């Protein structure tokens, strides 16, 4: 079953991107401690994103007419794999590059494409995702933030929450109700591009348990938006957001969230451990799982390359991938704690505890474990 997920090759021309992007990353990461690299796609560095843009690594899948590289999903896989493996600070451009730009390309007007896409490719337009609300988490169709038509466009009222990078973003693509009420569920929802500098927008950072403030609450108080804030068709928001989530869920970031920690622990064991038997077994187990997840992620990318929207496949890889990512800090903590007299580098300790603390978010962001398993069950014909 699920035969569409099958071993696939990364094309040679896309592999060729690996060495040059690696050089750029190495330069940017000089002197950056492991615990910061472990933040990876939570790490914000606008200058680094702009450097990537100048070198042509953003908008890899976008048409050349909009400043993109017009390459397939495999090219993006290679570049993203390098960024995540090294723990590069990619948060600034991450969402724009991964899902906002493809959304605008697929559903936007010509004018919207011409305005936003070149800016995304240059690393100058950062986006955040306006989905969750205080009353709408996994039950996304219950969103209450609403936009009503005015003579000049839209008037937006409501609140979003847990919005990653809202504080540093230029725009939000928000899922809002444009007709009916919350009881109409998927009907009557639309997506609007919100300029976060518009009057009436208030952004309040939320500090998380690691001390970081990567997410925020965003309030809309009679925010006046122009007619062209609407992206795609009015009332088609649910359909569009589902397609957007397939992009969000299918990338290799769903297997590499703990890889900086894993590699740091392997270096530690090689240097500091006498009897390595148990650590070797653990390293083998994690490596085998990661190799398989990588093959599954490439197989999902192959479905994207074939022009499909691999919603079920992506859910399957994401659920298994985040389970792996979450197991890494737990298993490494036990291994290190089983050797209390072995000195641990303070940076490794900080990295381990950072990843341990933030790991629950791996299976929350982009759809919870339970939601993903529901999607897989639908793929099995059970729903």
């Amino acid at each position: 079953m699920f035969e569409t997920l099958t071993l696939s090759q990364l094309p040679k021309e896309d592999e060729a991107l690996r060495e040059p992007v690696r050089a750029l990353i190495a330069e940017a990461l000089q002197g950056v401690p492991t615990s910061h690299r472990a933040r990876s796609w939570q790490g914000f560095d606008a200058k680094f994103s702009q450097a990537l843009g100048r070198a042509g690594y953003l908008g890899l899948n976008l048409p050349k007419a909009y400043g993109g590289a017009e390459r397939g999903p495999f090219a993006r896989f290679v570049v993203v794999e390098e960024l995540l493996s090294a723990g590069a600070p990619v948060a600034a451009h991450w969402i724009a590059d991964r899902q906002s730009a493809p959304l605008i390309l697929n559903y936007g007007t010509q004018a919207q494409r011409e305005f936003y896409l070149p800016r995304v490719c240059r690393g100058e337009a950062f986006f955040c995702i306006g989905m969750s609300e205080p009353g709408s988490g996994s039950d996304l169709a219950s969103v209450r933030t609403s936009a009503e038509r005015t003579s000049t466009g839209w008037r937006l009222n409501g609140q979003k929450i847990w919005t990653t990078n809202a504080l540093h973003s230029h725009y939000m693509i928000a899922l809002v109700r444009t007709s009916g009420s919350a009881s109409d569920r998927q009907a009557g929802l639309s997506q609007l591009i919100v300029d976060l500098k518009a009057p009436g927008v208030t952004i309040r950072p939320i500090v998380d348990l690691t001390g970081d403030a990567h997410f925020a609450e965003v309030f809309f108080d009679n925010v006046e938006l122009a007619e062209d804030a609407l992206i795609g068709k009015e009332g088609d928001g649910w359909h569009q957001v589902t397609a957007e989530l397939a992009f969000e869920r299918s990338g290799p970031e769903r297997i590499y969230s703990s890889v900086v920690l894993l590699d740091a622990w392997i270096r530690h064991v090689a240097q500091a451990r006498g009897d390595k038997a148990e650590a070797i077994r653990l390293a083998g187990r994690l490596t085998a799982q990661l190799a398989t997840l990588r093959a599954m992620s490439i197989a999902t990318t192959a479905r994207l390359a074939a022009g499909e929207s691999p919603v079920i496949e992506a859910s399957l890889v994401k659920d298994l991938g985040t389970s792996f990512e979450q197991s890494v800090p737990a298993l490494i903590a036990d291994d290190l704690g089983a050797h209390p007299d072995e000195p641990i580098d303070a940076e490794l300790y900080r990295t381990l505890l950072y990843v341990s603390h933030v790991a629950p978010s791996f299976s929350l962001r982009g759809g919870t474990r339970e939601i993903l398993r529901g999607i897989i069950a639908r793929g099995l014909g059970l729903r």
Partner: protein
Amino acid sequence: MDSHELLDPFDKLLADVAAPARTRELEAGKPVNELWETLQESGFLDALTPEVAGGVGLSLHDAAPLLQALGRHAVAAPVAETMVARALLGREGIECPDGPIVLAPLHSLRSAVTPLARVASHALVQIDETLVLTPLAAATLVETGVHRSLAGVLSWGSPPAGPSIPAPAVGLRAVAAVLRACAIAGAADRLLEMTTAYARDRVQFGKPIGKLQAIQQQLSVMAEQVVAARLASQLGCAGGLPPGLEAAAVAKQVTSIAAVPVAEIAHAVHGAIGISEEYDLQLYTRRLHEWRLADGSESYWASLLGAARIAAASQSSVDFIRATAGS
């Protein structure tokens, strides 16, 4: 001819000659001759044998779907093992006997528990750096005593005789492990199919149990393990015959890990009917447990893979995987 053109006829052939009723007969002690003659005539036993030696000349990569199909049908004869033995020996210009061959690395002239040893006529054994094709007539076979098991331990009083070739550097166990990984992946896929169908049909509380979220979540976990097992077994085959050590390790480690929850969830969803002999589920779940143990369990392969990984500690995980078990 590519593997896709072959898979469909092979699958149809197995559905007929290796139907559950046939497997039950073999497990009850019926000789394998009839099944084997059909397979021999089909030409599939030489799927991996080089064309110059009269075979089809498929790569291990292309043969992966066939190897998985053998697991899907719980074929009670060492077809994959014979295919590989014929390929390895055929490359060296050695002709193979017609009968079923098992693969058996020997330690002090003794094998580990070897699936299907009871229905084999020959074994390709590894002693030190050499592979020897030897008839089982001269071997002592000790059955496991496990209900309906066709496995056994093979031993010899003196070094077995027969045509010999140099062993692949990676060792015979790695080769056997990849075949076993494919079999696990195939049987796991069959179990997912059976269990999903059962969940759709079985009505409790006035509705199919597959409508219950608790059951849906278990089946989703099972599906993840099934797909992981298939991809891992494909990785094991990707580099051809013989496989690399790391690729074989990934394949057998991940499939052995998957075997346990897959069998567990299949039984949990089926309830009591699943553990009855009459119902087909046990034909596959018993094999998953046997195959997990055979040719090295998950920890055996994790230790070998981990030693290679720690020895390359300055490399990133991504680079290590790309170099050894990538695609």
